């Protein structure tokens, strides 16, 4: 799997290259600035791009803008955005096109190599990887009595949270140490309570949940 990597700090870039190579990714390019990233994304067309939000020359949200530009040019181009902080605002912009193949994670998540690599693979396959902190911000905005989320049981909320992060039923089952059948039951309950249409496609299901959580504001 070919990866384009954009990270301006040498230490982190080097570390990411090593990590991804250790898991048999092929590093098509490892760049350190916005313009280079633009070029690499256009010319190399990687299977997935791993991009830091803040890049030279402006040191603002250059990386995010490059990613959004590239996805406008090539809808669904898988992009995993890394940042020192996560904002619902950015997540919303990344998800706006509804095409999937999007990841948005705190840089800390790299510490857990297994999970990080899993996220990269998921995004490359057109799935979603949202940082737990983003999901928590989303849930915080919609929790409370009288709202549909208030009708979910604590267990269902837990499942919803993991599902919104982009995990498959099998992964959720593994994480909560229950059977996949149990998770499937929770999932259909959640969708019924929230009035969402059930879909067999994991990716579309995640996007529906995220859109639901982000609506209204």
């Amino acid at each position, binding site marked *: 799997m070919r990866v384009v990597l954009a990270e301006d700090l040498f230490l982190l870039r080097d570390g990411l290259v090593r990590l991804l190579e250790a898991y048999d990714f092929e590093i098509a390019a490892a760049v350190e600035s916005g313009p280079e990233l633009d070029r690499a994304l256009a010319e190399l067309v990687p299977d997935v791009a791993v991009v830091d939000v803040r890049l030279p020359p402006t040191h*603002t949200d250059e990386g995010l803008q490059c990613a959004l530009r590239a996805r406008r040019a090539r809808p669904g181009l898988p992009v995993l955005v890394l*940042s*020192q*902080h996560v904002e*619902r*605002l950015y997540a919303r912009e990344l998800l706006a096109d509804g095409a999937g193949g999007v990841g948005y994670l705190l840089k*800390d998540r790299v510490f857990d190599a297994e999970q990080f690599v899993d996220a990269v693979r998921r995004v490359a396959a057109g799935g979603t990887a949202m940082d737990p902190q983003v999901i928590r911000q989303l849930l915080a*905005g919609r929790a409370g009595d009288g709202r549909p989320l208030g009708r979910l049981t604590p267990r269902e909320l837990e499942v919803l949270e993991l599902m919104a992060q982009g995990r498959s039923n099998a992964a959720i089952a593994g994480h909560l140490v229950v059977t996949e059948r149990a998770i499937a039951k929770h999932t259909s309950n959640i969708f019924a309570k929230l009035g969402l249409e059930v879909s067999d496609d994991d990716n579309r299901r995640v996007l529906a949940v995220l859109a639901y959580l982000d609506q209204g504001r």
Partner: protein
Amino acid sequence: MDRTDRRERVDRPADNDAAGARSRGRTVVLAGLRALFLAVVSLGGSLSLLVLSLVSLALVPVLGVGLLTTPLVVKWVRAWANWRRLVAVRWGGVRIPPRYRVPPAGAGWWARASGVLRDPATWREFGWLPLDAVLGFLTALVPALLLLYPFEGFALALGLWRVFTDGTYVGWWYGFVPVGGQGSALAAGALGAVLLVASWWLTPALLRFHFLFTRVLLGGGRGELAERVRVLTETRRDAVDTSAAELRRIERDLHDGAQARLVAMGMELGTAEALIGKNPEKARELLARARRSSGEALAELRDLVHGIHPPVLAERGLGDAVRALALRLPLDTEVTVDIGGGRADAPVESAAYFAVSEVLTNAVKHSGAERVWVDLRYAEGALRIAVTDDGRGGARIGGGSGLAGVERRLGTFDGVLAVGSPVGGPTVVTMEIPCELS
């Protein structure tokens, strides 16, 4: 609105068409009548207040009676001066900004009274009273007479002269015209006509001159500058205090947080290194702990950075930073931003961001609101922010609401904060920071 409208009418020469003339005529008559009214009240009001204040000050040595009456008189003088300021802006478009010192929060009666007496503005107003009774009176009288006097000339010409003389001797003087018969009475009428034409052109301007004169006495040139220096000194001290306190907080947070966690991490790694040969299981456990510690240290640093300068503010500017802030709130929040593509200076952006953040935190904590509206716009050289919530109201500056801190922070940039929060709601907090966009 009202003000500019009037000023235009005062300054613009009358148009030639009938409507223009009618409007000009109304302006002139209104100015004349107002001048007459002002002449009467400025003489009466300033003179009586002058007498009252002299008596009151003279009574201070007499059993301290003056100590009780003087604050009252000062209050009246202020009200009188403020009414004249109001009239100046309403009738003449002349702004005379008051420059009173604000009494410190929580000052008692005595501190307030003595503070008022030490305020240079108070003494400036005392000094204004006698001048207003004489020169203020005269400058108001002139435009009034210029409008009214011509009518005496007309009346003389129309036959009023017969009251004063039988035509054989000079029985009355109209201006410099000796009225001694129908002929000279007609001359008086002609002079009246000339004066009326002069009045047509001059009365509003002369009334404005009266207000300008009042401004010279009440507005205060050097006093204003001194006051500005005082305010600047105060806000600078506040700014230095705040930033020093911030630095102390950051130092403490780093010391107790991230720094301590890094030390712990180092120890865990060291122990793991020592154990890796003889007890790999234990070493693995320590390594996992070290990784958790590093995650926690990062989380703490992230919070700290957010408190110093939120990354989204650096990356996107004020508008999106406030949007991102609103998205983190557990309330329905609507944000409208209209500042064009420009960005204010980083310190202004930061102050505005933290002000909005504090006001929103207040709304979440105390108001019981369900919805919040944030309106952010740039107009007339200032950033204007309004935060409205549908909560229970009753918010005020001070009383632990954090709004006093916001007011001080904004003060550094000559910004102001106003709170409108009747009991029962809604609460509207408006902030204004003069600045330029780049």
